[in-house]
């Protein structure tokens, strides 16, 4: 794993934002630090509807947050490790390689007011150098993002917005709604419907050589999911997800290096641990 490079101005900005955010809450005392980690296993890595790895992946995530009432300032890192792929697979690491394909680092400010959850953040996407047949560091980029949830008794509508400020300079938007379905007195099943929209992250006529995620702007895909999130004891939780995706953009239709499909399915399961340290009970 390589260290976070500070060569680009945008990465220096990331560190600056993190420092400013942390210094905004100088009294980091008891009960205000939350640390968490999780690992997700997915049978394939789908990102914004695009198959990034058609092989199973393990994706660890770690973060530490400062809590001020209902608000958090969080910094964290996330990594995607691919299992060894075949020659015909889609892979960030390149065919028949496996290992670390992508690293993300982020800083996020989030808050909750009544039923509303709002988060704004900055994230960087980093790839390995010299990856034949995969994604190399020319794909490194950074985005600002914002998410808004509105949690009601039965429905959770969400809007997520990302704007690439580095390599691509375009936006991607997700609108979704989750329906809460009671399956046990102590747990819900969530049925979700999500639509992805590209607004500048597709091929641009004015800059045809610019890295892009999609082939056309507009609706990229529709994702129907079923998921749940169970607590296992005080600090552990388990979140299985099952997805059926209807592909619209040609980039989202790719399922293997030489194959496409209008619909694809995948699942993932995540185990999470989080704890708050030193606080009053």
């Amino acid at each position: 794993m390589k260290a976070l490079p500070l060569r680009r101005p945008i990465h220096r900005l990331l560190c600056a934002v993190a420092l400013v955010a942390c210094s905004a809450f100088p009294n980091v005392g008891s009960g205000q630090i939350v640390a968490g980690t999780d690992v997700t296993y997915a049978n394939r890595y789908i990102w914004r509807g695009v198959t990034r790895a058609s092989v199973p992946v393990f994706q660890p995530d770690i973060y530490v947050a400062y809590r001020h009432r209902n608000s958090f300032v969080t910094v964290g890192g996330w990594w995607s490790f691919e299992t060894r792929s075949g020659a015909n697979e889609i892979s960030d690491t390149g065919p028949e390689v496996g290992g670390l394909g992508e690293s993300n680092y982020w800083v996020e400010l989030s808050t909750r007011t009544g039923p509303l959850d709002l988060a704004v953040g900055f994230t960087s996407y980093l790839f390995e150098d010299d990856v034949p047949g995969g994604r190399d560091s020319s794909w490194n980029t950074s985005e600002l993002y914002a998410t808004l949830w509105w949690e009601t008794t039965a429905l959770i509508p969400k809007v997520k917005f990302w704007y690439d400020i580095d390599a691509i300079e375009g936006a991607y938007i997700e609108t979704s709604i989750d329906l809460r379905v009671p399956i046990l007195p102590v747990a819900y099943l969530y049925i979700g419907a999500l639509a992805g929209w590209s607004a500048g992250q597709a091929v641009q006529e004015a800059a045809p050589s610019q890295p892009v995620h999609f082939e056309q702007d507009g609706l990229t895909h529709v994702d129907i999911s079923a998921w749940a999130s169970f607590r296992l004891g005080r600090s552990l939780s388990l979140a299985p997800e099952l997805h059926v995706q209807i592909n619209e953009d040609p980039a989202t239709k790719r399922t293997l290096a030489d194959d496409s499909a209008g619909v694809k399915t995948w699942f993932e399961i995540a185990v999470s641990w989080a704890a708050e340290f030193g606080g009053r009970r």
Partner: protein
Amino acid sequence: MRHKALLATALFVAGCGYNEIPLSAPVSEPPAPPGGEARLLAGFGRADITPPPGPGLYAYGPEGREARGFRVRLYAKALVLEDLEGERIAFVVADLGVISVALHRSAAQRTLESAGIGADRLVLAATHTHAGPGNFMGVKQFDDHGTSVAGYDTAMVAFLAVRIGDAVRQAVDSLRPARVGFAMVPVWGFTRNRSLGAFRNNPDSLKVYEPPPGLDLDESQRAVDPTWTMLRVDLFDAGSARFVPAGALSIFAIHGNAIPSVNDLYDADIHAAMQRRLEIHVDSLNGRTSSFAPRAVHLVANGAEGDVAPIFPEEGRCPPPKLRLGRRPGGPHTPPPAEEWRPLSPDLEAACIDASTTYVDSAGPVLGERAVEIFDSLAGRLSGDVRIARAFRTVPLRGAGAPPDLCDAPRVGTVTLVGSDGSTTRYYGWRLFGVIPMGFEHEGSTVETKPRGCHAQKRIALGSLQGLVVGKHGLPEMAQLMIVRVGGLALAVAPAEVTVSAGVMIERTVRREARAAGIPVDSVAVISLANGDLRYIVTPDEYAVQDYEGASTLYGPHSATVLARELGEMAALLGSGGPAAAAADVGAVIAYAGKLREVMPGRDAGPPPEDIERRFVSLECAGDTAVASWIDIYPGRLVPADGPLLRVERETSRGWEPHFWDDHSGLEIRALEAKGSRGYLWETRWLPEETPPGSYRMVLEAREGFSALAGGPFEACVGEPAGSSGDSRR
């Protein structure tokens, strides 16, 4: 198949883990006719049973919070009677949610040693306050799921048993010639039936109570047992050479759940106000002014209250927590947070508690005023020529010797999980996929559509898996039944919450059997929640409706029939009084307790007093509430308290004078935070209702190692209501 095996194994393991605790079988010494002049003797006792913060508050199930302090202290009050044949009986009413067999036997062991009173002569009843401690049940499921603080604490059992024993010993030590008399007076308008659908299903022959014409009561308020039974006791005063009022034993059917589940303080609920009003009255009759604790003693046991609730205001009930996604930080790839039960905001919880305490502080004294009227009406109807008899029976509910019409194994219905009307849990109203009713409500789907097996209409929670989850010995398996006769009054002592109509069944059977045996019984009253806890007892017709009480009747539809029959048989054994009539079947029993845990801070908690500088830290007004905090010794050392902890003084022309002590319902004491070797931070909140203007100050009472400590003077706070559990304390 493999998954089913794994699930079954997991559930089986969940149901295991009980702790077998043999209980003593203390049988009373034979009555010894007193020498000299034969006469009725009586004595009263009182012991503070307020535990330290830490245990869970019992009776709301897992919704009950961990206790953080107290609002109204808990007491065990004792009345001991001894007739001219030497027949002795002890009545103890404790401000607890229920009485466990483990506690009854432990207390009886102590009263046997100190006063010759064994289990067969000890009526230990609970007021059924829902703000008393748990962790003393000795029944696995009740220990582990009866409150949010799971476990069985032997120290809690010992603490309560010792103090109950102290109250009885005080009563025995103060036995004096006495005159007693009883009355049964209807008191309407303070209670309502919370399970009206089940009550309605009874035959008319069991709906016997009718209010007088002109009372404006709705159907639920008419569907109760309004009978206030009072046994007044006057004691001989050697100084004045006459009998003077001393106290009373009352029985009135009312749930002790006016204080809601979001409360985190010990509180004796509405019974405390009912008791105290008469105690102050009796003290005044004897020329005594009230102080920290009145001298007179008024025991208020519960009657057929299974389906009878106080008429608390709607605002006194908080909605239960809701299952929502948790509030956890993360980033763009962090999985969704786990769901968690999200409680109401502290402000809303405070509003609920305010509404309920306001109700208790207004309705309780009014009920107490009725007690005063009944007490005074008995003044000319007292007698010292009263015979006492009792019969006691230990009844196995499972296995050999169990009544054949009970179900083989106890089961709870789905409705038990959702709570009662007015005290619903977080599971109330749950439906599969949001639309398919699964019995998590109070009517309709709660009834098994195809009744089969002994439990008939009961929709058993978790179905056939319940046996695995509850486990072997997970629920009560024996009952201690008792009948006491005091003159013409028979008291049927039931280890359960008996509904109004089940109470009628019991009273009728006892009266019929006693009279058939030639025993002079004029009146019968049921004392619920005494000597054990079987949860609820309903009539067969109520059982068929499967409301909360029916679902919580553990041994099936014939439970009330069996209970009435057993008590009727025992009534026939009462005889005309005297030792020959005694029937005492105190068998050896075993408690199957839950997890053994130390939940109650000990007397050695924290640093010793000499290492702590007791001092006030702050005093401020939060709206209309005065809030003071101070550093003191740890919970376990400061509470349990033998005497007052804190008093509020008012400045008068004679200087600073006590205004009231910390047993005043307007004052709360709460343990806030450990400060390590510096001590423990405590807080008191005083809502000075109807307080005369002037200067006040708080004074920490002197105690071992500390002299009294006065805080600074302050004016009574004036402002918007701050709530009794505001955000600042959490």
